[in-house]
């Protein structure tokens, strides 16, 4: 614990020296750019009787890129904001032959989550005292458009008798996230002031976020389960 305590004290001291840089233009919005991995729990629906996701895509995760923009409604002891975001995730795999072995046919799965979030960032210490760490939380609704592709890169269509079932749809759910942001401005006070004066960007952050996503049409039981607990990293700009 001692190294951690030293680090916090050091960071606080670093932030305090840059507090004069926080005399700034009004803060109204936050833009976050996320990158991370995502592993939807599709196979969980089948209770272990079959693992089509793992069979096709292996143990790897989807690459997920997201963008989030929020509007700051209240700035007192922290910041309360409402925001929206969208992302795109994809993964490629191999189709299987009748024996269950991988073939040369490349297939894929694509996920485009759309999110509405209520955000709270405890940035009081950062704004008032230059402490460069900002913990935050989010909660909201998620709708994800998804589509599975076949070897011809078309939307997959599974035949059930004479009818077809299209490998695309929209699944609804909710999400909750916690994260912590590190204020980059403390590294260069003059650069931060210049960024604010010239581009109106008050604060720049790097962050790490842990998000629980429950995506199964609120437990309908007749939906692709696209839920996951995932980490993401990225850059954020408050302006």
């Amino acid at each position, binding site marked *: 614990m001692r190294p951690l305590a030293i680090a916090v004290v050091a960071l606080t001291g670093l932030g305090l020296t840059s507090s004069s840089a926080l005399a700034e233009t009004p803060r109204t919005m936050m833009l976050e750019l996320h990158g991370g991995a995502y592993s939807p729990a599709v196979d969980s*629906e089948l209770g272990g*009787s079959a693992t089509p996701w793992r069979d096709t895509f292996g143990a790897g995760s989807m690459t997920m890129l997201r963008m989030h923009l929020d509007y700051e409604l209240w700035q007192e002891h922290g910041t309360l904001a409402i925001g929206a975001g969208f992302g795109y995730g994809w993964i490629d795999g191999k*189709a299987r032959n009748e024996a269950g072995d991988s073939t040369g046919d490349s297939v894929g799965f694509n996920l485009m989550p759309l999110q509405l979030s209520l955000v709270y960032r405890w940035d009081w210490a950062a704004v008032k005292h230059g402490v460069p760490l900002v913990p935050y939380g989010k909660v909201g609704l998620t709708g994800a458009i998804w589509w*599975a592709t076949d070897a011809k890169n078309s939307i997959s269509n*599974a035949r059930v008798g004479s009818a077809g079932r299209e490998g695309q*749809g929209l699944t609804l759910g909710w999400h909750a996230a916690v994260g912590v942001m590190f204020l980059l401005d403390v590294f260069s006070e003059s650069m931060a002031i210049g960024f604010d004066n010239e581009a109106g960007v008050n604060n720049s952050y790097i962050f790490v976020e842990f998000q629980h996503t429950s995506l199964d049409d609120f437990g*309908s039981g*007749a939906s692709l389960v696209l839920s996951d607990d995932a980490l993401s990293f990225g850059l954020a700009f408050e302006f």
Partner: protein
Amino acid sequence: MFVTRPHPPRSGWTSRLRLEVQPRLFTALALAIPLGIAGTAHAAIPNFSFVGIEGVGTLDGQLDDRLGTTKNADKHIINIADCTTYAGGEIDVTVRIDPKPTGDWQYAVAYAPPGKTCSTTDANPEAVDGQCYVPAAQRELTSTSVSFVINMDDLIGGDCESGNEGDATLYVILQNTSLSEVKFESIIFDVDLKAPATPTLSEVTSGDARFEAKWTDTSNTEDGIEYAVYYGDAPFGDDDVDAVDSKTGITTKSIAIDSGLSNDITYYVSVAARDQADNESALSNQLEVLPASTTDFWEGYVSAGGKEPGGFCFIATAAYGTPLEAELGTLRRFRDEMLMGSAAGRTIVHGYYQFGRFWASYIADKPALRSVVRVMLVPLVWFADLTLALGPEGALLALLAVFGVYRHLRRRAQVHPLLVQELR
């Protein structure tokens, strides 16, 4: 006093109609005029244009487009197949000089096979280095249009299997007899009798009603090389390529063929290289491939018993409980065949996708509400059925007819109160 400018390096797809302007001519003129020295002037022909080419006799209607037969064509290509087709034949070339230059002018037409040139010092051209054919010399320019016949064997240079490539040149020369002024234009024919080398088909892998072919080619290094993949359900040779399926215009060294194939049929595959003049190499080695059914993620999910219905018919799926109901099939067909065919229909579908899912989620676990929605959907299903059966116009007419009958009955009911009771 003029200098014949050497032709620039070959580049098959650049403009092949050259306007020969010789900078040193202006220097000569600048010197000659003040000194009163009589000299031969030369420049490009003003108002010159290429009109076209037509086949003569056996070549009438046999010319390929790549010869550049149409007005203002700037590429004129002769490949191995053309050489064979055009052998012993003649073409009629027409150019235009409109308006004619003022004064007394004579014209000449000459052409030389690849590697040879004709002199352009006056309207009486001669071979510079051995071969120059002159269809017309020292003729009075009386018309704005000039036509002349060219022997294709002479233009191409003979042997179609020589493997030679180069530029054949057609000259149109004007000379003002009183001023000793000479102007000329040259039209270049890209004669390419060299077929590309044969690539090596290295691998063909099978997929679900598809295959992927890969090949190597270290010999054909010129720009613009393309490949053609040929495949059929029986072995074939170079003479059979027109009878088998193919994919042409490939600029990479691999390709996926994923249309028109059936599983569990052995296909034989070969590849050939094709150059910018459309000369094609001999067929490569032939490999066999057997496309077979594969299972992608979604198919695996469905076959494993996954319940997600897929697609976007949210409310109807929720109401009917299963995507396999006949009514859902009708609504899906109505969406795909009717609504998606028009901008207004697509807007409706888009709006439905945007908001329908929320209603679907809401009613999914409420049996009573699902029943209500199911009843409410009945008229829509009927309308969809009617539209699919009669088409949009037919459905509209049918609805108008029903409406008309209804109004007629109402009017009658107003006239005959007893009928009102009967209707009720």
